[in-house]
């Protein structure tokens, strides 16, 4: 279970800094694919959902809906400081708040943006958590 974690990435209004770092994790320099990670195109295929960005008002509905469409067992990873604490956007009229208001966050990778090594660390931890969740389910 932990050897083949598939990732779906949701951008809820991020500045794209974290997204670029996430994509760079798949590149040959950091090569997350050797651990079995794969970016999927649809949440139905995903095990780990990586959310970046402070949850803006416009993206809140869509985030909740997409999160509901991911099959169990799933692991939620918040990428960067924005979903963790809204970062510099806290208190804005259009920002709905940190991610754990909407869903239980399993792994939180802090940083603005976090280094790719930290992202890989967080994803590997998420893969382990997924294995435990699967065992817990049985």
């Amino acid at each position: 279970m932990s050897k083949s974690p598939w990732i779906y990435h949701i951008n809820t209004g991020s500045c794209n800094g974290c997204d670029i770092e996430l994509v760079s994790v798949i590149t040959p320099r950091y090569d997350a694919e050797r651990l079995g990670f794969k970016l999927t195109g649809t949440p139905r295929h995903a095990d780990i959902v990586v959310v970046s960005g402070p949850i803006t008002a416009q993206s809140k509905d869509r985030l909740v809906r997409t999160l509901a469409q991911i099959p169990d067992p799933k692991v939620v990873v918040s990428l960067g400081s924005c979903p963790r604490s809204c970062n510099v956007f806290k208190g804005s009229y259009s920002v709905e708040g940190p991610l754990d208001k909407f869903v239980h966050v399993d792994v939180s990778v802090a940083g603005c943006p976090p280094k790719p090594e930290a992202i890989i660390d967080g994803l590997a931890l998420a893969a382990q958590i997924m294995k435990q969740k699967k065992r817990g389910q049985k």
Partner: protein
Amino acid sequence: MIQHFPILAIMVLFLGAFLTVLCGKNKVLRNIVVFAAMLASSVFIAFLIKPIMIDGEVITYWLGNWSPVADYAIGICLVVDQLNLFFAILVSVAVLLAGVFSFKYMSRDDTLEKYFTLFLMLSGGVMGLVLSGDLFNMFIMVEILTFAAVALTAFRNRSEGALEAAFKYLVIGVIGSSCILIGTTILYSQFHTLNLAQLSVLLHNNLQPATILAFTLLLTGFAVKAFVVPFHPVEADANAAAPSSVSVIISCVLTKAGIYGIIRIVYFLFRSMNLAPLQFILVLIGTLSMFIGVTMALAQKDFKRLLAFHSISQVGYVMTAIGLATALGVTGGLYHAINHTLFKGLLFLCAGAVFYATGTTNLDKLGGLAKRMPQTAALFLIGAFSISGLPPFNGFVSKWLIYQATYEKAVEFGNIGYAFVTIIALVVSVMTLASFIKVSQSVFFGQLPDEFKEVRETPVPMRIPMWIMAALCVGAGLLPQYMMRYLINPAVYAVMNVGNYIGSVMGPGYAEKIAGQTVEAYSSEFALAGYWSPISWLALFAIIICAFFIVSLSGGKLSKKIHSDSPSGLDPKYDTFFSGEANEHSQVGGSDLFWGFKHNLRHYFDFMHNAHSGVISDYALWAFCFLSFMIVYLFIIV
């Protein structure tokens, strides 16, 4: 007693038609009369199977007992040999199932007594055509069925385009009938007889310019009835406008009647199938029909028009196979003829069921009906896979035979052109599959529009004939050896051996006496280049599927892990994935599928679009051009 069955099979239908007029207003009585007529006719035909197909007799029936006098056939005769019976079985099955379907299907229309009268007249006409043994009788029956079909096309005269379609059908149909009439008249004036057997002997090695002209006219006339290229646009219009049960008859039965006519003219009357250029022209017409039919079908927006264009394509297959003049070719062609009746009938009945439930056949407006009409969807898929030629359904067997026949013909002649016919046939088959995937996605799968959320499954009286046809499709695919032994091989033998027919009709030894030589029989043996054993294949497939169900059950406790929504639920978990947007209706329109294909062939499609202008004078012009071309061509080759 058996001697009378052919005429009874025909007369029962006509009698039923007249009785329907009399008792028309009483719905129950009318339905009983109609059903009894169709059933009786089918029973008579069924009783003829054993003596003719199995024992090899040929039944000849002279109306009024006017037997030939001094070797001269004066009376009208009905001849039932294996080929006739083959087509009669095809006709009776289609008529019976379409008729039963129309009881419930037409129940929302009014003036139904006229519908059933015309329906029975149509059936009687076709039955008469395939059972008759002389030219003028065939012409009369052709007239009856043309006018009945025209009237039935216009039956729903309040719907848009029905009257126009009927008018177009009338014009082209009359052109065809006139060709047949003129051809018959010329032959009569030359030989003073109308009997097919006698003419066959008298024409042998005796071709004069007038008879060649008659040959061309007869061939063109029956080609019009079979709706091959270039007479095909009318069939699309007629089939789209007619009620579905009538579409079954027009596209499945009338086209076969045209094919039957062509076989009789070319193989029997003129016995000229050993002329290579004649084979070439028939194969050419068939190949053009195949290709034009399917490419036009890929561009259609209307369900029934699309099915009609596919009919043209499949009749092209039959024509190609018959034009090859080899035993394997004729086998493939006849097998495909009966398969086409079965699966195209099933498809048109499904189209009728969809129309009954939703009131429209526009592919852009339909969608997602499989959730509300699952059985109809399953039946449609059976028909779609049959027509695409997927194993183990019946379309595959006949297409397999046709591919082998065309490829072997290419080898026999050393002519690579026939290899291209094989390639075109295979590619057309894939395009047929594509077209039906498009239809199933547009009609049955995909998203259900709001206005159809309350449609109900097809009523049982309509479903029964559909299930029977589906069962026959599957059966014909799984048990080809029985089909071949009892139905196809006798018919092929009859096609290849004219002598049997002539001897039975005019008395033995007639051909030798008049023509001075015995009638050659062509070989009806063939060797297959490959092998296919459907029963073992299907058993294997079933074993494999069982094995996999076991595997998937063990690999995750399938039943516990599948989650779907409660019937009234609104949990977003079970929404369609729209990148997070709320669920909304955005079904991919039927005419938008296959954009890549249409884009690449856009020059071809533009040309076709302009050519199929819908103006009846254009179609009539095509008909006359074809006729003149054929006249010139046949005069050159003979």
